[in-house]
């Protein structure tokens, strides 16, 4: 992009009175703002930018060229599973028969869509080793909240008051946030130096407050990419204290096809379809965070739900609907049940159908045999990177990792080149930066998750660049510290951005421009 020509904001391109379209002559002008109650009327114009169509098209086309996605290049963002989004998913989701559906359409006119819902619920339950899934939550954290609401409803149904949630200190920040939103109190479980749960500390906490523990939330493999070797012991301890085990599905990709959260003793979990099941991730969504439960907890899942009313053996040509919608206590057009205990609603209708459809297409296109390859190949790629980079990048935890590897910055700290500098320099070489400064267990965390999609050639090229940056840090540290040099915008002042964020254009605009 030519920044001189095309680097302006849309507001800076605005010229008073310039238009990109005009309303048709027969446009109904009979209604005026005078009909609106005083309180709803604007006091001043909306200050929208005024541009011609060509200017608008060029502006956004040029902006879009600055975007970086999985389709542009390697995107090794740890803990995020930036998986390739197969084109067939998009083709299926774009089919008119699906894209044209209305959420209030009668069930007997959208049996195919309901079948997709139902089958995906079944597939996820099989892959997770759980009994039943709801596809309604629209994101991972939304799934966490839904799962915790299920857990809370379960304890309430048993007339138990349990308000504490145990969360390892290595957890994703969304875990304590979801617990707090659900009205539960967070208690931190310490980690050992290898990043796994300190089982002795957990035991001590359960002895102190076991009868108040509603659940323990766990990510496995954890945020350091390490499989928790004592997971069976942990789930058993929490169950004995009367708590439920919640599985954060953020890192499910490492295990897909190899082992199942249900078999490890987890009772409730969420899956990020936008991570593990190849639907687009990032850019604000849409995401999808289905929640699954073990047998005995199904009645606490939110409504509405797609249910099978007749077996699949209905004779060919039969017109009776096979799938129907169970709205529970919730009216289809409101979400009034949201504040009460389950069965309740966690949003409008059934979550993001397009995303659900893509995830189902992904599972079907891989098939049962190939799904089993996902976890092992993702793990192989991460371990290959780990072994090839550990000469230049400090590996705080040895041994096998799962789908992602965490380094603690460069081995040679004498140059003053930080993880931030390495990440910025990667942009110069055309790569998306890995996750940095998370997990918090190390000061210079640099977390790489290659996923199973990447070829050896792509990974080797990335490794070469990482070695090159490590060499630059020694020979020309200033070059790395002042990176990026080849991007449309250079090093930004993140301190100023955090301290004095400018969140609106209008403050900086002169009144004479309005």
């Amino acid at each position, binding site marked *: 992009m030519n920044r001189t020509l095309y680097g302006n904001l849309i507001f800076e391109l605005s010229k008073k009175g310039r238009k990109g379209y005009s309303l048709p002559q027969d446009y109904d002008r009979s209604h005026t703002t005078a009909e609106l109650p005083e309180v709803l009327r604007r006091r001043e114009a909306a200050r929208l930018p005024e541009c011609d169509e060509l200017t608008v098209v060029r502006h956004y086309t040029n902006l879009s060229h600055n975007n970086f996605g999985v389709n542009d290049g390697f995107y090794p963002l740890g803990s995020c599973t930036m998986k390739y989004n197969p084109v067939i998913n998009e083709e299926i989701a774009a089919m008119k028969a699906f894209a044209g559906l209305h959420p209030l359409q009668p069930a007997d006119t959208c049996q195919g869509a309901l079948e997709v819902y139902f089958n995906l619920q079944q597939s996820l339950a099989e892959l997770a080793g759980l009994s039943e899934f709801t596809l309604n939550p629209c994101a991972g954290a939304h799934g966490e909240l839904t799962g915790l609401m299920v857990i809370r409803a379960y304890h309430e149904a048993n007339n138990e008051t349990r308000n504490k949630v145990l969360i390892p200190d290595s957890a994703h920040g969304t875990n304590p946030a979801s617990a707090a939103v659900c009205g539960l109190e967070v208690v931190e479980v310490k980690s050992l130096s290898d990043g796994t749960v300190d089982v002795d500390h957990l035991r001590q906490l359960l002895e102190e407050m076991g009868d108040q523990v509603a659940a323990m939330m766990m990510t496995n493999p954890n945020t350091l990419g390490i499989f928790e070797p004592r997971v069976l012991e942990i789930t058993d301890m929490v169950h004995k204290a009367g708590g439920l085990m919640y599985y954060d599905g953020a890192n499910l990709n490492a295990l897909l096809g190899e082992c199942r959260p249900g078999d490890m003793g987890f009772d409730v979990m969420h899956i990020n379809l936008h991570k593990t099941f190849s639907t687009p991730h990032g850019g604000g969504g849409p995401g999808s965070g289905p929640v699954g439960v073990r047998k005995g907890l199904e009645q606490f899942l939110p409504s509405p739900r797609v249910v099978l009313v007749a077996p699949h053996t209905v004779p060919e040509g039969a017109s009776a609907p096979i799938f129907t919608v169970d709205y529970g206590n919730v009216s289809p057009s409101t979400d009034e049940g949201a504040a009460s205990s389950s069965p309740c609603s966690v949003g409008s209708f059934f979550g993001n159908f397009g995303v659900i459809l893509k995830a189902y297409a992904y599972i079907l296109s891989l098939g049962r045999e190939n799904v089993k390859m996902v976890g092992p190949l993702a793990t192989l790629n991460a371990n290959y990177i780990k072994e090839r980079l550990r000469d230049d990048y400090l590996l705080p935890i040895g041994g096998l990792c799962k789908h992602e590897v965490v380094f603690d910055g460069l081995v040679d700290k004498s140059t003053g080149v930080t993880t931030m500098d390495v990440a910025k320099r990667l942009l110069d070489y055309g790569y998306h930066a890995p996750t940095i*400064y*998370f997990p*918090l267990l190390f000061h210079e965390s640099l977390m790489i998750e290659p996923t199973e999609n990447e070829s050896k050639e792509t990974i080797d090229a990335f490794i070469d660049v990482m070695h090159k940056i490590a060499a630059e840090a020694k020979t020309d540290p200033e070059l790395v510290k002042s990176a990026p040099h080849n991007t449309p915008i250079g090093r930004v002042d*993140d*301190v100023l951005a*955090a*301290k004095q964020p400018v969140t609106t254009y209008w403050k900086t605009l002169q009144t004479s421009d309005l």
Partner: protein
Amino acid sequence: MAQFESGLFYSESHEYVRVEGEFGFIGISDYAQHALGNVVYVDMPEVDDEVTAGEEFGAVESVKAASDLIAPVSGTVVEVNEALEDQPELLNKDAFANWIIKVQLSDPTELDALMDVEAYKKHCE
């Protein structure tokens, strides 16, 4: 490299207490500010608030992370370092000179559970 100041009491979560008579000045160590990176916001309690040893009394936000402040001792807040409201970066400039809160100690024996500078140095290794 992180600086260490002797004569202070240190906690495992990297807060220090400088004791002057019945008062304690609580801040974060130089090691802590170094690990946090550029501090952009300090969330502090108000005067007359009670703080309890081992419990959170505020937070420090940096460009890398937000970190809870854990009270190393219990007491009543008698003063907060208001300069940090506009200039949180003072913690990066000199963490020991820029304490965060001043408390009236309610139980000076709590200091016995904290580390001296030598023990704290080892803790940071």
